[in-house]
């Protein structure tokens, strides 16, 4: 149970970063931390005590396998996370070229 709680604390750390930071790069970092905690939570609920890697050995019947369903979902989500992070970085580069700052409060004041 302590593992779930620590995983939740990691999520809250990312949320804290998104709310309080004003630098755009820091916000993206906090978003990816929230993403990581979510992946870890999904992998945690799939774990079975004493289970093995979910690869079937035809000779070995009766082996206990770890749950493959959450792993399959996380596998695709990680690659999507890379693509969305790269897209956010592209947005940040454009914003920096236009306003010469990464502070969201100053960008809001400029309104150009």
């Amino acid at each position, binding site marked *: *149970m*302590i593992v*779930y709680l*620590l*995983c939740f604390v*990691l999520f*809250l*750390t*990312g*949320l*804290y970063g998104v*709310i309080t930071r*004003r*630098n755009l*790069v*820091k916000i*993206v*970092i*906090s978003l*990816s*931390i929230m993403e990581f905690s979510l992946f*870890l939570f999904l*992998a*945690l609920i799939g*774990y*079975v*005590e004493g*289970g*093995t*890697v*979910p*690869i*079937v*050995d*035809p000779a070995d019947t009766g082996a206990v*396998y*770890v*749950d*493959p369903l959450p*792993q*399959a*979902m*996380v*596998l695709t*989500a*990680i*690659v*999507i996370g*890379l*693509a969305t992070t*790269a*897209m956010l*970085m*592209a*947005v940040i*580069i454009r914003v*920096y070229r236009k306003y010469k*700052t*990464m502070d969201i409060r*100053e960008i809001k004041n400029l309104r150009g």
Partner: protein
Amino acid sequence: MELALSVILVLMILGALFAIHAKDLLSAVISCSIVGYGLVICFLLLKAPDLAIVQIVVETITLVIMVAVVLDSTRQEPFTRPDPQGWVNIAAAIIIVVVLFFFLKVASGSLDHFGRGTLRMAQHYIEGAAAKTGSANLVTGVIFDFRGYDTLGEATVLVTAVLGTLAILRIKGKK
């Protein structure tokens, strides 16, 4: 098992806190990788080598892209003077944390204990998977056979993200 995971998770939380509070953006980006590579070790402990392979390569490429962006623009975190409306943010954060902990308490009642049995739905996948799909790797079998629609959707999201990046970063049109 649970102890090892807890130690790595505490290290990840410390790395995340440092990444959020670092003065230099480059060190913030690099200490964000503590969380990513710690996640790789967690996946290996949780018997998920597929995820570990993907995560270690994805983390490296994310680091390359982020460092390139940070070096291209400014590295300094702008001096943050005390915010007159800062207490609004702090109060909102405290309220959100209390509400989320309440929902965690409600939800943890229906959650199994750590490492105790599989989901009801996954039992069917594990039992007949190798015979039904012919694939020895159960994760691949789930991705491309039982849940093919999911994979198609995720691939579409990937294409959309690439098209969005191309549209954002274009300065002059193609001739």
